[in-house]
């Protein structure tokens, strides 16, 4: 009975695939790779940022703001790790159209989010919530660099897209040297960024053997190889150690 249902599901998926010709719907039916990014060793202290010169930013904090290069969660996991499928996708793979915008906000003289993933061609909406000048300079190599200034709170965000896969494109503000963000630009939707629980989940993978990479701005990259079939879920863990 259950086998039948799975078969029906597959058939349905194939119909969708056949009619719409898009992986988007079919992706929901694929396999999942999930897991955590653990952190071992002494948790480094993040340096305090003196924002006294920008009172509008300083006013947004009750505790002194710090740098954000290493954020270790209370459960011993590491946040802001970009996990993505580095290789292994089938040759004829066509990514779904990515129309939902990714938003990056300059708020309290910090980028929110600090690390994010975005697909090639997916719109990036750049907002400024601070009533002062930020410029956002992308320093991509595969992508044409941009440098946009937003001298005040934006009412309409500025929109940019990336044209090539690149991990990572660094973004920086030259007015506030501590402001740093990273965009993982990939040509498919199989990426995630670890949050406050340190977990990630890559869903809807077609069957195959994948190289999964985890990237952290200070601790570098780690890779794992995972083979999935059907709609199974596989778990993999990454561990970064303090330096």
């Amino acid at each position, binding site marked *: 009975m259950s086998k039948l249902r799975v078969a029906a599901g597959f058939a349905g998926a194939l119909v969708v695939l056949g009619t719409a010709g898009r992986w988007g719907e079919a992706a929901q039916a694929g396999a999942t790779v999930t897991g955590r990014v653990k952190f071992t060793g002494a948790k480094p202290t993040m340096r305090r940022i003196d924002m006294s010169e920008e009172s509008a930013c300083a006013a947004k904090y009750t505790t002194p703001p710090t740098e954000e290069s290493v954020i270790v969660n209370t459960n011993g996991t590491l946040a802001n790790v970009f996990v993505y499928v580095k290789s292994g996708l089938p040759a004829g793979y066509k990514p779904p159209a990515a129309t939902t915008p990714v938003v990056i906000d300059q708020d309290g003289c910090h980028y929110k989010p600090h690390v994010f993933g975005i697909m090639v061609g997916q719109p990036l909406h750049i907002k400024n919530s601070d009533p002062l*000048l930020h*410029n956002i300079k992308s320093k991509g190599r595969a992508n044409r*660099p941009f*440098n946009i*200034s*937003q*001298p005040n709170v934006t009412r*309409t965000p*500025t929109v940019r897209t990336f044209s090539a896969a690149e991990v990572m494109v660094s973004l920086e503000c030259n007015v506030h040297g501590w402001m740093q963000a990273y965009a993982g630009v990939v040509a498919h939707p199989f990426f995630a960024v670890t949050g406050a629980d340190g977990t990630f989940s890559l869903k809807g993978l077609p069957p195959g053997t994948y190289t999964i990479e985890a990237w952290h701005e200070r601790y570098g990259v780690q890779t794992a190889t995972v083979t999935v079939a059907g709609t199974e879920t596989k778990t993999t863990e990454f561990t970064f150690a303090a330096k």
Partner: protein
Amino acid sequence: MTSHATTAPAGHAHHDDRSFLAKYVFSTDHKIIGIQFLFLSLFFLLVGGVLAMQMRWQLGFPNQPMPGGGILPETWATDGVLLPEYYIQLVTMHGTFMVFFAIMPLLVGVYANFLIPLKIGTHDMAFPRINMASFWVAFLAGAVMLSSMFVPEGPSRAGWTMYAPLSARADLSGVLLGQQLWCVAIILLGLSSILGSLNYITTVINNRAPGMTWFRLPLSVWSLFITAILGLLALPVLSGAGIMLLFDQTLGTHFFDTTAGGQALLWQHLFWFFGHPEVYILILPAMGMVSDIIANGSRKPIFGYHSMVFAIVGIGFLSWIVWGHHMFMSGMNPTLGSTFMVTTMIIAVPSAIKVFNWLGTMWEGNLHFHVPMLNAVGFVAMFVIGGLSGVFMAATPVDMPIHDTYFIVAHIHYVLFGGSLFALFGAITYWYPKMFGRMMNERWGKIHFWLTMLFFNLVFFPMHNLGMGGHMRRIYDPTVYNFLDPMQGVNRFISLSAFALFVVQGIFAVNFVWSLFRGKKADANPWRDNGLEWSLPNPAPHGNWERVPSVYRGPYEFSHPQASEDFLPQHVKLPGDQEPASAKGAAR
């Protein structure tokens, strides 16, 4: 007056059967080329003014949406509020258009072309086809420069002085294509100026009418001649520097890239080695034309003709050894600063001589304040301020607080607007009848002069105070600094005055265009002047004279005791005048 005119041989060298294209577009006639330059540079004067108005909006009303700013693309303004990068593009292009495509071609392109052959008495330039090429190359340069406004990322963001490495590295300025186009346009403009200068120099040396000795040349011709020499020697340096900059951006050379062994100050030395002679290219012709007009308006010979000539030559020479005064704060060896301070101080002397000679010309004259005279006297009154404020910058210790502030902005505008542009308003009105056969409207000319004088001073005089207070130039939003807060009211006042100054120029524009069609028909010699050009009918025909007139005296014999009227043209032979020796040769 007509009695003199009839003594001149009538014009009309050839029967004119050229096609429209040959006559007005691809013309080799120096007068048509001058008029082409006139329209081209007046267009860029307008463009430069429009850019300035946007800058003034931002400075007077920071972070407020500019009226009409909504039509600007998102790379220039969001919701009508100008962006910082667009602001510095405005700064860059305002300076570039005004210096290279408005004032310089207005003075040199228009008047060297139009006046030299007419005033020295010859049929055309020595190399008419090179002359035509000079205009079309300048036209192309203007088109390229204008196009840089409309490419992705827009035009250059490095200021009109293009200081490297900001100008050399796109990763630092954020502009590549616009910056490259700037270089290409400047290289082309340099080519145009070199072609033009070559022509002016050759023509003045070789093609003077019989009897037109060096010391019978009008001061306008003298100044245009020295200007041409400066242009011929200075523009290659700019073009060369432009080529190096273009190579840095395009081919990966490192002339100015300090991370790879280049030198940042090299650009400044090259730029200002060109740039200071350039400053005199932008003022010498104005001085020359003002001299002609003031003598005419005073009905008196110019005071101290010879010292005027030597002052022009002296300024021309000294302009080559003062460039370092732009670089006192640059990190250049301070001992060099001392040297450049001395040379810079000395260049004040010939300028002073000129000013006092103009005053001497007016002294005991019979002053007719026609529109050109008003503007010429306005030039003297305003140029003095620009010249004197230069002494502050020349003194190296005083330059320290005022360098790169609005004091400098005030100075350059007193020289280039108060100086050159007033002279040009005078010159355009003065030679308009010989160009177009009609007079510009006198009453509106006077209204334009007085309103311009008023608003010009309201805009630029307070900038001295901003500069004394330390107000940096080229900053997008002064309100970022606490010490500039008390000056914001002055900034707003300047902006409002600037808008008025811009509107007032509409009077000139309308007068100029209206008079083309409806202006009073002009006599051959409406200003009762002595120059050879006034012996020709209006507008002067192709080829000028069938046979060029002989010259018997200098150009400033007004109120001559032997003349029945208060002027005595250069070509009128009085009893006892010797026929010039060269006049016996073939007709020139």
